[in-house]
């Protein structure tokens, strides 16, 4: 039973490698991030992808958010974050590949805890992508409550894209 608009997001631990401008090429040590601690009192745009470095995610979904992050934040959003079930090193490398620096927080839900808690995970075993992959979606979260949720119904990027989210801000 998936999360809905009006619900409170679950309190789970995600990990990320903090952006370090002095060591742009080096990965910093992954840090845990508790969703409730990090997002309390803030307005967050969180978009989820099935996989870093995969075609749709890399060519369509991520670049839009990377280029429009500032525009999103100008509309009363404190954090723009991306989450996938890849580990934090992979998320960091993917963010670097798209030049996000600190404009998009690259979050890892490696054990699928967050995805499972909100009911938006798929089994990628048949494609040899592993048993837990997040669905493609975007959320606007306001002080931990879901304000907007766009879950992609099929392949491609529509309701989960930056343009759709900006229209709702």
């Amino acid at each position: 039973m998936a999360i809905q608009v009006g619900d409170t997001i679950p309190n789970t631990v995600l990990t990320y490698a903090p952006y370090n401008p002095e060591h742009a090429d080096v990965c910093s040590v992954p840090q845990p991030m508790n969703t409730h601690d990090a997002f309390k009192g803030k307005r967050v745009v969180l978009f989820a992808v099935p996989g870093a470095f995969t075609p749709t995610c890399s060519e369509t979904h991520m670049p839009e958010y990377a280029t429009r992050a500032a525009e999103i934040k100008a509309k009363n959003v404190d954090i723009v974050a991306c989450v996938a079930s890849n580990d934090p090193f992979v998320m960091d490398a993917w963010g670097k590949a798209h030049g996000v620096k600190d404009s998009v927080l690259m979050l890892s839900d490696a054990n699928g805890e967050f995805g499972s808690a909100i009911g938006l995970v798929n089994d990628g075993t048949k494609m040899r992508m592993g048993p837990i992959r997040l669905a493609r979606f975007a959320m606007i979260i306001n002080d931990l409550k879901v304000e907007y949720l766009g879950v992609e119904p099929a392949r491609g990027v529509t309701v989960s894209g930056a343009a759709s989210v900006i229209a709702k801000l």
Partner: protein
Amino acid sequence: MTIKAGDEFPQVQLKYIPFNATNPDACLSPQVLDTKKDFAGKKVVVVGVPGAFTPTCSAQHLPAYVAKADEIKAKGIDLIVFTSSNDFFVLSAWGNSAGVEDKIIMAGDANGDLGRATGLSVDFSKFGLGSQRLTRFAVVIDDGKVEHLFTEPDPSDVTVTSADNILSVL
């Protein structure tokens, strides 16, 4: 139950994206790498690493194998495979970033099949990598039989699993 020298290397299906020599920017369709069928009659080096894009793996382990791939193959090795518990898209991107081209097959074990079949999975949760990750190992397989197996005592380091050490036993 962990594999050891003298054992048959287990049969699992990994996945990889082949290098596209004609158009390196275009992705070819992912292929299955069957560790029994595709290794039959061949001499293969398989290197397992905890994670693509992680510091040790990226700075030390992979580059040395890229640099010494030709030397390794000159000693009778038909295939060099790098694998980790990441998916094949991630392995492909990692290989591209390290200039692997077609020297090394970058195969993903996202389903954890190889880890389970070899017993070479460890819990790397404290490093943020999850509880079922391949540890750092290097194995020389001759027509399906494990000839040499090296497992790094400290997976965050590269000693017995290095390209140089593998060269020394070939």
